[in-house]
């Protein structure tokens, strides 16, 4: 293949920077046959994309949303009103007379308005979003830059160009800023980020690691795009964290909105501030609240003697006497009687691997978990029937087996429905759940790995 064909090949695979794109255009300009072949290949490329990428559900939803909006009774009434106005010729005649009378004033007003609009458009289009990317902060000796096959040590002030790949080592960080524009990308340790293009908005590829981003307003129709092996995040101005592991991409949005598209099936979700979403195989793409904790519900005056009997209570499970958000999977010791407490929420494993669980509880307590995020699939994985001391996760042998749930394989990026129940008939009641996972000692399950289930209406 000659150089022209090689450039074309790179163009179709998105590996052509702006300089090479210009060179390709110049070469093609001199070669009419080359242009025909290039356009032919372009059309095949687009046909392949259309064939293999089914229409997104959002595209059809957007059409229907607009159709329904246009059919809204209010819009219809306005249209009827417009149609009822006098014929256009009469209106035009009125307009012409009016323009003739005030021509001088109108001309001045129009000229002033044009100047204002042009100035505002200039600010809007070319305002604070045109800075060149450069390294503003970097751990000395901890970050490198791959450029045209060469590896450079990252230093503060170095300009980042299209096709450059930035890598941070262990305990190293690097920050990219964009001149006067208030946009910052902080690369955490062990991160690899490639600047793929600047020609139509800032486009990056996050191959691994974590990027904390604070994005100033971007130019209209030129959003910043961060792609990962599993997803694409499209933003016009916001604060968020994007993290990539071997099989999952997680987006945590602090402010603003980010359009998060899963690459595998092009399903997209809008993630608002205070929410997160995960793109990973076999994981439902949802914008979920980041609020850590677990829903804790209670029922007073429960008459049942054991957990099976409380199902006879008409208030259970949908009508608790109260609820709150617990920061840990724990009911601290409390003196009470005839009280049923239920914890409900989702467990978010930080890494893929086997996890063990332990339950300690007064009187009758149960720990239930689902292999999915569905409450219907829950099974009892641990229980106590005679009660234990608070946080006594290693009770005498005959109880220990039922208090402990053997290793369960959990996948990072997914969420699992989890539920804890304790019935306190009289005296001191408590419940606590501990877990142990890959590289993590046994510890009380805390808010960092939990999100609450929605209370029943």
């Amino acid at each position, binding site marked *: *293949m000659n150089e022209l*064909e*090689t450039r*074309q*090949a*790179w*163009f*179709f*695979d*998105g590996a052509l920077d702006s300089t090479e*794109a*210009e060179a*390709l*255009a*110049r070469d*093609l*300009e001199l070669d009419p046959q080359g*242009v025909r*072949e290039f*356009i*032919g*290949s*372009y*059309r*095949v490329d*687009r*046909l*392949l*994309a*259309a*064939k*293999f*990428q089914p*229409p*997104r*559900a959002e*595209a*059809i939803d*957007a*059409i*229907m949303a*607009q*159709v*329904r909006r*246009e*059919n809204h009774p209010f819009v219809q009434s306005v249209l009827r009103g417009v149609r009822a106005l006098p014929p256009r010729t009469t209106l035009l005649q009125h307009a012409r007379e009016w323009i003739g009378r005030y021509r001088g004033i109108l001309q001045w007003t129009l000229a002033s308005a044009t100047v204002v609009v042009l100035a505002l458009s200039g600010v809007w289009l070319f305002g604070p979003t045109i800075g060149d990317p450069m390294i503003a902060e970097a751990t000395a000796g901890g970050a490198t830059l791959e450029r045209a096959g060469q590896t450079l040590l990252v230093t503060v002030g170095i300009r980042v160009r299209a096709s450059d790949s930035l890598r941070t080592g262990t305990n190293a960080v690097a920050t990219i800023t964009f001149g006067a524009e208030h946009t910052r990308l902080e690369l955490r340790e062990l991160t690899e980020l490639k600047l793929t293009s600047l020609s*139509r908005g800032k486009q990056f*590829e996050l191959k691994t690691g974590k990027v904390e981003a604070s994005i100033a307003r971007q130019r209209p129709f030129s959003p910043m795009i961060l792609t990962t*092996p599993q997803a694409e995040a499209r933003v016009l101005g916001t604060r968020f964290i994007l993290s990539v592991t071997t099989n999952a991409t997680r987006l945590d949005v602090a402010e603003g909105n980010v359009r998060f598209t899963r*690459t*595998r099936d092009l399903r997209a979700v809008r993630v608002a501030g205070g929410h997160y979403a995960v793109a990973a195989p*076999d*994981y*439902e793409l949802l914008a979920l609240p980041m609020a850590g904790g677990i829903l804790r519900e209670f029922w007073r005056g429960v008459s049942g003697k054991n957990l099976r009997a409380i199902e006879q209570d008409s208030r259970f499970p949908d009508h608790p006497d109260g609820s709150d958000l617990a920061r840990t999977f724990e009911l601290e010791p409390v003196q009470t009687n005839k009280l049923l407490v239920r914890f409900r929420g989702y467990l978010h494993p930080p890494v893929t691997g086997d996890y063990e669980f332990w339950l300690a509880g007064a009187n009758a307590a149960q720990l239930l978990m689902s*292999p999915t995020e*569905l409450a219907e*699939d829950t099974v009892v994985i641990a229980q106590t029937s005679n009660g234990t001391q608070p946080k006594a996760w290693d009770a005498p042998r005959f109880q220990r087996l039922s208090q402990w749930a053997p290793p369960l*394989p959990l*996948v990072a990026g*997914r969420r699992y429905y989890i539920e804890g129940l304790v019935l306190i008939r009289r005296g001191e009641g408590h419940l606590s759940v501990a877990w142990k996972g890959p590289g993590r000692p046994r510890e009380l399950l805390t808010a960092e790995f939990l999100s609450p289930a929605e209370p029943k209406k």
Partner: protein
Amino acid sequence: MFPPPVTGRFRHPRTSIMTEPDIEQAIQRVKAGCVDDYSTVVSAYHQRLRAALAEWCPPGVGVDEIAQFAFIQAFRQLHRYRPGTNFFAWLCAIAHHHLLGETEVLRRGARNRENYLQHLITQQLHEATAGEPELNDTRIRLLDECLQVLSPEAQELIGERYRERRTVESLASTLGRTASAVSVNLFAIRRKLRECIEAKSAALSRGGLGTA
């Protein structure tokens, strides 16, 4: 061990195969005021319209945006649609007209911004689209036929690149080759597909003239 995770609990019934009479009935119901039935029409024709539009949209013009415009325009003008005529051809005509306007705007913009490559692509596609009597999805059917002729390895590579949307770097690491080699391989496959589609297209038009 946990059973396999549950996925895809809810699927939108968009993939159902509709017959022309079904679609005609849906159009009549929309005309009678059942706006929600327009989703039947949109679902039936959306992918076909995208396929018809795909190869004519230069970078910067989204197929979905043009398709959306066409469906909305068709809805606004639905009272003009005569039952029994070709609704899809009507949609294509609306989309074609709008696409010409969009590419013209983009062509001027690319020239002003001195984005030569985009200008060149847009210019070429604009001229070709303007010379096209009507849009249709024939070429996507020809593409299907041509894909069958490719070797299994080439079919797999195309599937990974376009269905799975994998980057050449990712494909290269899987195949144990350089990204450049994968890119060149893909380019050669596209060229083969182009030649196949053009040959079939020419044969089709000759056949069409012969039968006319």
